[in-house]
């Protein structure tokens, strides 16, 4: 009896409450921001002589991450809905190719429409197969990854398709809006719209509910098939815009553009705190996840590591970050 009383909770009320507050503050949710700052400071000190902090280099990081950021915004919706889209990288490649070919044939507007049509068609097929036939999105989009990149290579006979339209190149990637690179503006627009729609609209809430418990969402009157269709459509459309950003920045369409981006985008989304099992999503987290990857790439290049070493370090950092952010 007396033993229990001596360690009664009341005796240590003050420090306990402080501890409780600290515990309440779930730092795991902020691991991406902490990680971003730590990695940034690390490079800032280590690489101060290599010009890491120069405005030009910092803008470069943003510019290089822009396409991944855009793709990852769409991917956040897919993963928050407990699905996956592996076809985004090849959709970007196919879209860059179709845009370039239609542009040289018919001009600016048809070029842009052709690029968007790629996303519309591929996204709709992915969505329809997943929601109507109930095939797992992993398999559907894995198949689509091959199909899209194959088509892109086939119709171009593996040749790059140059884009000579200056307006297109300026708007999609090469140009600046005042002092700000166009690519940065593009990713800012996607992040802003993505964040508002996910957090502040009915659709966003329904995506999270469908990912969190599809059964309960269904019983609540949410058409979960339509939601699954829509997230895959969004992901395809967003990836096709990313493809046009590649085309504009590199002034050509090529089937290799975007290859491997699906994995970088998934890494960015998971680093950003979106649950791989669905139900939770953070677009701002995704942005920082993508920036962190860009930061690491940039720092490692400046540090003079060769590309094989870069891959090893990048992989290790991603595993470390996800391990720190995991749930108890």
């Amino acid at each position: 009896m007396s033993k229990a009383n001596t360690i009664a909770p009341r005796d240590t009320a003050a420090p306990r409450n402080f501890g409780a507050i600290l515990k309440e503050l779930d730092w795991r949710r902020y691991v991406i921001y902490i990680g971003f700052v730590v990695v940034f400071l690390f490079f800032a000190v280590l690489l101060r002589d290599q010009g890491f902090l120069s405005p030009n280099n910092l803008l470069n990081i943003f510019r290089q991450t822009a396409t991944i950021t855009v793709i990852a915004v769409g991917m956040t919706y897919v993963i928050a809905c407990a699905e996956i889209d592996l076809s985004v990288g090849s959709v970007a490649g196919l879209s860059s190719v179709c845009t370039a070919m239609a542009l040289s044939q018919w001009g600016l507007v048809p070029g842009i429409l052709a690029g968007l049509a790629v996303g519309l068609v591929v996204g709709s097929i992915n969505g329809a197969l997943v929601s109507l036939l109930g095939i797992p999105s992993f398999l559907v989009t894995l198949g689509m990854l091959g199909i899209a990149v194959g088509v892109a290579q086939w119709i171009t006979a593996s040749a790059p398709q140059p884009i000579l339209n200056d307006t297109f190149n300026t708007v999609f990637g090469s140009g600046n809006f005042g002092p700000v690179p166009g690519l940065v503006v593009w990713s800012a627009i996607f992040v802003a719209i993505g964040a508002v729609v996910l957090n502040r609209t009915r659709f966003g809430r329904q995506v999270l509910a469908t990912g969190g418990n599809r059964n309960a969402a269904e019983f609540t009157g949410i058409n979960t098939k339509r939601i699954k269709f829509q997230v895959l459509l969004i992901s395809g459309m967003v990836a096709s815009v990313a493809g046009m950003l590649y085309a504009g920045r590199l002034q050509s369409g090529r089937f290799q553009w975007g290859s491997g981006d699906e994995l970088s985008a998934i890494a960015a989304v998971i680093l950003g705190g979106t649950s791989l099992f669905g139900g939770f999503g953070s677009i701002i987290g995704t942005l920082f996840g993508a920036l962190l990857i860009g930061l690491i790439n940039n720092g490692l290049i400046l540090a003079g590591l060769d590309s094989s070493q870069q891959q090893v370090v990048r992989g290790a950092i991603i595993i470390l970050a996800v391990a720190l952010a995991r749930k108890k």
Partner: protein
Amino acid sequence: MNTADNVVEMRSISKSFNGVPVLKDVSFDVRKGEVHALAGGNGAGKSTLMKILQGVYQAEAGEILIGGKPTAINSIQDAKAAGIGMVFQEFSLVPSLTVAQNIFLAAEPLGTGGLIDDRAAVRRAREVFSEMEVDVDPRAVVSRLGTAYWQLTEIAKALAQNAQVLIMDEPTASLARHESEALFELIDRLKQRGISIIYISHRMDEVYRLADRITILRDGRHLLTAALTDVTPEQIVEGIVGKKIEGQLSYRARDHEAHDGAPLLEVRGLNAGHRVRDVSFALRPGEILGLAGLMGSGRTELARALFGIDKIDSGEILLRGKKVNLGTPQQAINAGVALIPEDRRAQGLVLEHSVQDNLLLPLLGRIQRGPFLDGAKAKELSSSLIKRFAVKVAHPHRPVRLLSGGNQQKVVIAKWLGTDPDILILDEPTAGVDIGTKSEILDMIRELASAGKAVIVISSEYPELLAVSDRVLVVKDGSIIRDIPRSEIADEEYLQLAVQGV
């Protein structure tokens, strides 16, 4: 009392979460070969106490004695080694494996060369089942078996690990009546073999049927431990709730004919799948209709068809005399129908999402401003729902998973009543809910009907059905076999016979 008789003794256990005490100086003991009932309202601390005994949580103060010796239980493995087994409420079996594979999961008998000896596992599983005097095929794949067999497998799993104490948490919740009876007989046999059972249940009749002693917790404190022969059911209920419950569980004749006599809902010749066959009935505003039937009789499927989840093959549904098409839940909701599903965790809630998000999920249209959701409106609406339905929440932004079963159920009900439906269907609305919350829910149902709503209540608990229904439909093999006004039902016995089809 001679402490040597105690297989388990928990002394002065205290535990708190985030500075909030949930157990305060609680002592609890179990004697060899006894059934000890553990009772208390939702949030009284029963599950926390049991989780400490199982090694899921560690007590902050107090000690645990196993067989009279102080024992540290810091993990589930420690608890197993100490002979404590748990029959989980949500079964902890791997559905794709066989019964024998599940029983010896992580403790597989090994043969030559360190490979698993499946034959030995099957043989030993047979031995365990024959000691239990039940007939289960150890080679059967678990996912193909019914819930009653899952439970037997769970019990066998614990016994195979030499458990001396079995914790059973609401073991009859998902069992049909004859399956429950078989379980009770098994418990009697286990008792005779010297196995002790800690029995957690909200059902008073089971406690009286099985238990030797009862311990009641209230608000994290130990209230009383007594032999069942020394306490009356009224004392137990009062102990759990903290106040006298007057007649909430007994029927009060309501003037349900005061409302407009035209039926709100009319169902004609409805067929859906195999479990709804040629069902016709009418429901008037202000009326509470009870659906009685065994599990699998088609009562849940009827509710699902009315709510647009299961496809309707033929027949008509009329709302206020007009034919309607309820092909999807969305259409049903728009027509003013709400369904509180039988499994709140799987179908009613997004467990990882906050209380507020769950409450507002069907109400998103009401908190919109332009295309956006309005945070201020959301907060206002959710806190008004929380208040109106007296949901006990620490914070509306914490995950709903952290709430007790009764409060989770209130969230599900609140979420649906927020849509202001005309027709409310409740499937097992009080399953796994303590008696205090239960009476609150039953009162809520009566109030809704008095306000002119039409209510359908599905329940396996006859006292509950009899307490609220104005009329009872008996469902068997997908069809309605009887339509009995409440006034003609003398007692539970009568209804039970009607359900059996006698």
